[in-house]
């Protein structure tokens, strides 16, 4: 028997989840911009509603365009499936809302995207869900913060904005020892640079708004289930292991095995919370994902050129990028991120906040806005924008100073980017 070979990453990025449209042969994924789908007859309708036949009912729950995107990210991450959501924040909320209710507790890295920090620190406590924030570089701190009511361990592959590298294998080990899943935000790295499930994570999510779509035109999220976590053995997740009255007493682990989490998230979370993605948004993200490898290679190449430039510049106090030998996670980055550490990083400028302001306002090619992962280069001052709700102590703990500047390096000619930075750095020091 000749040994078939599995499709490789770049092929999956272009094809996974989509067969040419059987009706018209459309090679591109069609945009099924419809709310609902016609049933053949009443028995067909009942069979789909009751999980006896596969199919689509209503686009809040499933849609053929979204299904292609969901399969594609699941294939690239090595999961059993995925759910597309209205935003990365919606994906995070869907994961949490599926795993716990009031009384639940999360152990999270303290180096999180500001929006995620807001959700965990301020909003979820109103719904009875508490979070303990810990140093992402200290696995023992994760272990020490776990309580009987903990339901999730959570971090980012690359912390925001200091690029702390999460030791996924070790933190996953800590979580699993306690019968808990590890959820990882892989937005900054994409599966091209790191596949967290391969390192022991159980759930992965992305703000697909960023590098996956890559062009800054849509908002979307993707939540991937690795399918390896043993919910039954954990005994902490009755939502997945006991009959659910809200869906004909379904026991999700009994019915769906490795896909239990994902099916509960869809059948309850999308149905009831309703934070679904639009089919047109899914189409845009699919277009971006087709060139993910090429773009990420160029993002990383450009970033390395800029790091080299900034590293020698007298107006730059420090740079936080794990590929630099002085970064505390340099060795771990080489292990987990051999293809590169992404295109988002921060540096501290001489002269603090005033110099930072002059620098940002002098840039011509870099755009000053609150986003990352665009094909265009971006810049922001975290202390006054993305992380402005954090107090001084929390900012310091997250590695953010008054003069910290965050760059998201795009795909422009790197010489033009360096010229732009050089000009702005010069202006910043004229105060």
């Amino acid at each position: 028997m000749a040994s078939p070979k599995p499709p490789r990453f770049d092929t999956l990025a272009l094809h996974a989840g989509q067969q040419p449209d059987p009706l018209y042969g459309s090679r591109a994924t069609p945009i099924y911009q419809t709310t609902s789908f016609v049933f053949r007859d009443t028995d067909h309708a009942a069979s789909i509603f009751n999980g006896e036949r596969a199919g689509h009912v209503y686009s809040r729950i499933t849609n053929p365009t979204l299904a292609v995107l969901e399969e594609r990210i699941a294939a690239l991450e090595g999961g059993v499936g995925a759910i597309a959501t209205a935003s990365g924040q919606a994906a995070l909320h869907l994961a949490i809302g599926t795993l716990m209710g009031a009384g639940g507790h999360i152990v999270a890295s303290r180096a999180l995207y500001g929006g995620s920090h807001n959700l965990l620190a301020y909003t979820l406590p109103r719904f009875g869900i508490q979070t303990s924030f810990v140093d992402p570089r200290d696995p023992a701190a994760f272990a020490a913060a776990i309580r009987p009511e903990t339901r999730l361990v959570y971090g980012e592959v690359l912390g925001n904005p200091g690029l702390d590298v999460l030791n996924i294998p070790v933190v996953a080990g800590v979580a699993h020892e306690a019968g808990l899943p590890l959820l990882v935000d892989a937005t900054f790295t994409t599966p091209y640079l790191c596949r967290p499930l391969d390192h022991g994570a159980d759930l992965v999510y992305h703000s697909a708004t960023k590098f996956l779509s890559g062009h800054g035109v849509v908002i979307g999220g993707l939540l991937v289930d690795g399918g390896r976590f043993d919910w039954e053995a954990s005994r902490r997740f009755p939502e997945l292991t006991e009959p659910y009255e809200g869906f004909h007493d379904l026991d999700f682990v009994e019915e769906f095995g490795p896909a239990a989490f994902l099916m509960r998230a869809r059948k309850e979370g999308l149905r009831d919370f309703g934070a679904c993605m639009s089919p047109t948004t899914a189409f845009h993200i699919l277009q971006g994902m087709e060139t993910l490898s090429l773009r990420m290679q160029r993002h990383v190449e450009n970033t390395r050129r800029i790091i080299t430039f900034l590293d020698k510049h007298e107006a730059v106090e420090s740079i936080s990028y794990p590929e630099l030998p002085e970064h505390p996670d340099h060795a771990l980055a080489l292990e987990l991120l051999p293809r590169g550490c992404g295109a988002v990083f921060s540096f501290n400028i001489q002269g603090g906040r005033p110099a930072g302001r002059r620098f940002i306002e002098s840039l011509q090619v870099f755009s000053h806005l609150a986003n990352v992962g665009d094909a265009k280069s971006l810049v922001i001052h975290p202390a006054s924008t993305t992380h402005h709700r954090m107090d001084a102590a929390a900012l310091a703990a997250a590695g953010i100073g008054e003069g910290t500047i965050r760059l998201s390096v795009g795909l422009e000619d790197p010489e033009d980017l360096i010229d732009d930075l050089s000009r702005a750095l010069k202006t910043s020091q004229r105060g």
Partner: protein
Amino acid sequence: MELQVGDQRIYAYTGNRPFREDQPVLVFLHGASMDHSVWLLQSRYFAHHGYSVLAVDLPGHGRSGGEALDSIPALADWTATFLETAGVTQAALVGHSMGSLVALETAARHPTRGRALALLGTAVPMPVGPPLLAAAERDDHAAVEMITLWGLGDRAPLGGNRVPGLWMMGGVERLLERAAPGVLYRDLKACNDYQHGLESAARVQCPVQLILGSEDRMTPVKTARQLQEQLTGARTVVLDDCGHMMMVERPDQTLDALIAAGL
């Protein structure tokens, strides 16, 4: 539901409906190293359309206790005992891959138990390639990867799952990874060692439906012909663009073929 069969706790999925003895019974038998969940859609359908369903986890598989049995005849005798324990005098036996051999042998050895047979992804004999058998014996993950790739049809590795959002390759791999060490090898060896299947087929008296995949690399359509010739009056359906894992790759067509079989 759970049953005590001998000294083992055995689990059978009933399609999210209570098991009733006053309805025709369908017994679903899974393939090597798998469990009841491969029959999810089909078993739910029949359970909600006038049948009582037992999608059993064979000993040592899924939620059932005990150790995996090491031969098809032993599994067939166990199936007859399982039916007796469940209070089922006669059932239609629906088997996939290794499960199809178990269904066939059960009908041959215990002719009063089988009302009808549906054999999916089947062939007799069912030889297992030495590289796969050797990898399974080592509990090498390569065995899981081989079955996943060989088990799916030509286009399936690029996806197109009928169940929205699920990635077939990942789902099949994770299910196989869940089996206890040694189970996959024991199952594959049982298939490989089953040499008298054609003689057993000649003894089967109940109606038989074969459901095959046009791109099945593990039990190709042409190797099922010998079996078909031994089964008097057997009907055959070949599903287009479909490999060995038809319940996952073509769930609706598989279900339609089972409905048409009049089980």
